């Protein structure tokens, strides 16, 4: 029995999860920065 499909599936699950978390966090941060900067220009220095 080859173990390759199990190894590949494990790494795929890991990379997909990390990509989902990282891209989600980056997009949310970008949106939040844009909204805050539009309302409060002083906040640009904080972000």
């Amino acid at each position, binding site marked *: *029995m080859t*173990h*390759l499909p*199990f*190894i590949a*599936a*494990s*790494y795929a*699950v*890991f990379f997909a*999860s*990390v990509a*989902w*978390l*990282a891209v989600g*966090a*980056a997009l*949310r*941060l970008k*949106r*939040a*920065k844009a*909204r*805050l900067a*539009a*309302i*409060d220009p002083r*906040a640009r*220095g*904080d*972000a």
Partner: protein
Amino acid sequence: MTPSNPTPAAVPTAHATPASRGGRLSLHRFANPGRFLRLAARVQPFLTISAILLTAVGLGLGVFVAPADWQQGDAVRIMYVHVPAAWLASSGYAALALASLVSLVWRHPLADLAAAEISPVGAAITAVCLITGSLWGRPMWGTYWVWDGRLTSVLILFFLYAGHVMLVRAFDDPERGYRAGAILALIGALDLPVIKFSVEWWNTLHQKASITLSGAPAMSPSMLWPLLICALGFSLGFAAIITARLRASVMERRVRGLLAAAAARAT
């Protein structure tokens, strides 16, 4: 309507305490959202870059350089994602419980937000741990799942994370959600020693710990180093993601406060 020149009072500082204003206690210095945002923006690139580099090196060594196991063959390479995910699932929950304790005892304004941001990421990491564990178990044990002490206690950890996510969002008043979530997180911390000692207390298919603080690791250095590098990379990646989410959360809270203040002035 959006305020063109909001007064300082309109900028929410959450529940600022006298100590946070005076800066006497180091913990409360970071209760100031502006100070936190400036510090986090500086730390974020270092966390992100070091996490990517360490994870790439650790996984590269684990997949291409480390030897196959004499019993498990190449399936042992699943260890380099499963074990760091398992450590991170438990340590992430410890961080959630700590943030909850700080929230309940000191009412630190960022602790509530940190707890709310840790739990969804922790749930995802715990899911990775469970799925990769099942994918490792099928070729080694002949089954994807058994209801033994280790697997079941980690599944409970996943439900605790998921319960925290839902409980925090279940109330119209966010403060009540944070309080309820903090209590759940502290009670749920009892699961952490159960996870740790489950392989000692009960008969289980899951192997005992190969790395302990008190003894030499039961693992070749050629496997141990990639594992430790992966664990450090995963931990820094977790910190980077939580920092980014927490920065976004603080900014979103500021936006809500500014809009509420503007609406109050307009009426």
